[in-house]
């Protein structure tokens, strides 16, 4: 069976500490000024004392139906055999259609390679070495879980089957592979 890599971000566990975004930058050599990954601490929402923050992971959602791939005129944005949306730098002509088409606004032009860039779950660095993505590796509070959702024994499959999760902008039909476990304080019981 083919793999279906997914990332699950537990907003109850996330403390917005940015360990993930720093590790991502170190592992992938992301140039200063652009980011593959951020966690935005948004809010507080609600009325005091019943306030809550939202811990919003902002990174490529690894859509199964990826608009960036559809619009790419050169095939630089493509879906690999592993199902991951990736970029062939030498095919990218820098037209930025993908940057405009991404509903999650997480693609950017890499000032060093001059090609479009974004999170690829550390496909060419850590995954290639059989390691977990950088963000998952360092997360202080174990808020991130990564794995093959097609494997029923995987941690991700177990989490998706037992916890209430949501994905961003599913109404667009993108079928994102980043799942989020909502914070209990947001009013949605997980």
């Amino acid at each position, binding site marked *: 069976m083919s793999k279906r890599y997914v990332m699950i971000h537990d907003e*109850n*566990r996330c*403390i*917005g*500490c*940015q*360990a993930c*975004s*720093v*590790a991502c*930058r*170190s*592992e992938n*050599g992301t140039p*200063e*000024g*652009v*980011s593959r990954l*951020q*966690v*935005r*601490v*948004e*809010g*507080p929402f609600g*009325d*005091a*004392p019943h*306030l*809550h*923050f939202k811990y919003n992971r*902002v990174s490529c959602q690894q859509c199964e139906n990826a608009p960036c791939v559809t619009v790419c005129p050169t095939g630089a944005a493509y879906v690999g055999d592993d199902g991951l949306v990736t970029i062939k730098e030498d095919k990218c002509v820098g037209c930025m259609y993908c940057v405009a088409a991404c509903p999650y*606004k997480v693609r*950017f032009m890499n000032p060093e390679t001059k090609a479009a860039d974004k999170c690829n779950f550390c496909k060419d660095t850590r995954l290639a070495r059989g390691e977990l993505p*950088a963000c998952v*590796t*360092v*997360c*202080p*509070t*174990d808020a991130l879980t990564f794995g093959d959702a097609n494997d029923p024994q995987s941690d991700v499959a177990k989490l998706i089957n037992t916890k209430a999760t949501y994905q961003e902008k599913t109404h667009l039909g993108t079928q994102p592979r980043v799942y989020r476990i909502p914070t209990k*304080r947001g009013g949605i019981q997980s």
Partner: protein
Amino acid sequence: MIELDRRTFIKGAGAGGATCALATLLPGSLAALEQQPLKAVGKEVASICEMCSTRCPISARVVDGKNVFISGNKEAKSFGGKVCARGGAGHSLLYDPQRIVNPLRRVGERGEGQWEEITWQQAYQTIAKNLNDIKAKHGAEAVAFSSKSGSLSGHLFHLGKAFGSPNSFTHASTCPGGYVIAAKAMFGTKVKRDLGNSKYIINFGHNLYEGINMSETRGMMKAQMEKNAKLVVFEPRFSVVADKADEWFAIRPGTDLAVALALCHVLIEDKLYDHAFIEQHVVGFEAFAEEVKACTPEWAQGVSDVPAKDIRRIAHEYAAHAPHAVVDFGHRATFTPEEFDMRRALFAANVLIGNIERKGGLYLGKKAKTYNKFAGNKVAPTLGKPGVEGLPKPTAKRIDQVDEQYAMMWSSGGIYQTILDATLEAKPYQLKAWVMSRTNPMQTMTDRARVVESLKKLDFVVCCDVYISETAAYADIILPESTYLERDEEIADKSGKNPAYYVRQRVVETIGQTKPSWQIFKELGEEMGLGQFFPWENMESLQLLQVNRDVTLWNTIKEKGYVSYGKPLMLREPSMVAAFTAHYPEAKATDADGTYASAMSFKTPSGKIELSSDKVEKMAAGRGVIKYRPVQLKQADELYFIQGKVAVHTNGATHNIPMLANLMSDNGVWIHPLTAGKLGISSGDKIRLSSSVGSEEGTALVTPGIRQDTVFAYMGFGSKNKELARATGKGIHCGNLLPHQTAPICGMNIHTTGITLAKI
């Protein structure tokens, strides 16, 4: 809130580009060298982080000769192989063009920012001549030595001792000294908290989810998520820990003591406390019970704004989870002059439910010597302590030894801020020179203007640092220390419930002319004519003395980076004692109840836990028993000004590190919408904060996550020296607003004051 928005996502804070040009002009900086690829020492090196003082065990690997990818060392289980944003950004410090990699001499006025590069030999000769001259004229005690604690403070203070000065200081009185002194008074030693096994956690603004201490942060999250622990937070601001809490109470700043005493009141009056435990292990209960009789929840509500019914309910819930419940005794930030009694009251709430040496409660560290004694076996090796004989005994008293009430602090880092009194007012005598290592009192001490005045008045100032920090900017000589990624250091004790050791090791070869502390202060000592006190050749020789020349042990510790021995042991936890005795057949015999309760001993005068202390009473009349005393932290028309930690920075140290500066370079001032509305302030407006000692310009961040009578800012921002190009002038400088005030008994620098706010 960490402000990260669309703009920064696309463009980044981009501080580096504009300031690099300036940095290249800075003599002695890394920018002055040609950039060379990093040379790795090994494939993956286990070491110890130094991005904050928690010193987590790390594992580091050089990526493509450009970066160092740092994660946690998996050998240290409670750290989970994890690292925070600061820890992950270590290479950004290593390769920062603004880092200092050559010794510098000041050529203009102090603080003017005119520097010239000198050789190490010139630096040593200048320092040796100046310090020896001062010693000859004014005595060795006229020189103060201060340092961030760790291997570096060990070597600097050794130099200070060899030189003959009693005046050595850590940053304790500006940071974690309060709870340390309170614990010393009650338990005779420091205690640790077992948050990971706790079922009920009461937290007074110890923001472990922003002021990350990896094993404790993970422990608390584990307790919350996997063990269903309830977390109650009392904090004036809606911090991340308040957000993650089951209940958050916006307590009035500085009134934690009242709520803690009211909790104790309910525990005692409603007979919820552990009577047997108090009988067996505690002295001073009666006097304490008498004192808290009046501290009703209703009274505490009037002081703190925390509803009485909630205090009562929380005390009952807490007791219902005893002994696997804990009141967190906190860390930095001295909220009130009554710091000592506040921390003692927090400890008292633990003692009352008898959670000492119980899972989820408090416990004492089990170093090899203690652990082996219980095991009846040499389970863990004990380390040798390299030292030298014949060190001179200082003839003078310490400068903070003016008042007996501070006696417990003298050996716990000292009262750092007394350097200012001794320099400016010759109290108790005149200081002439200050030698510092990796400490930044301009940021961490209160009343910045007074720190500047002191640094200007002294005859001679030396700073050892990795940057020209705000303090180093006023030095005569700057010694560039290697970053932790370039240093080997002594093996350190990391024992918790069982013994453990770990070690800092070089990950990359040294860049530029920097040296590790041990080498700097040894070579300086030799130049000063004190070579006899530095008989060791290098760090290897020191490590080998530590392991008593057991090369196998040495290699194991170096290879794994972190080694622990035996099983976790808490002396009063029956299941742990049973597992321990089953594992070690020669273990000490247990009590009839299957625990080691009777073997528990405390280094207090009575040998028991001292809920009230005759010793403290003798040091300061009227202070033996924990007591509430009203304090005035602000004037009626002022707002409370409080500070805290953010997850991406460490107090006075990391704000210039490129990767972290890009994440956050400014500290918006949190203001309640109604407070802001009355003053016509909106988010993003320029504002002025004025206190009794200073005035700062900042940016407003209007949010409901703060009390109406309080403003908050993350500390460590707003540096004022031009050398820290990324940090300078960004945000408000907290130390510049706080008056110089010292708390009784513990000698802590106080971090709450009153300010007025205006739109500009």
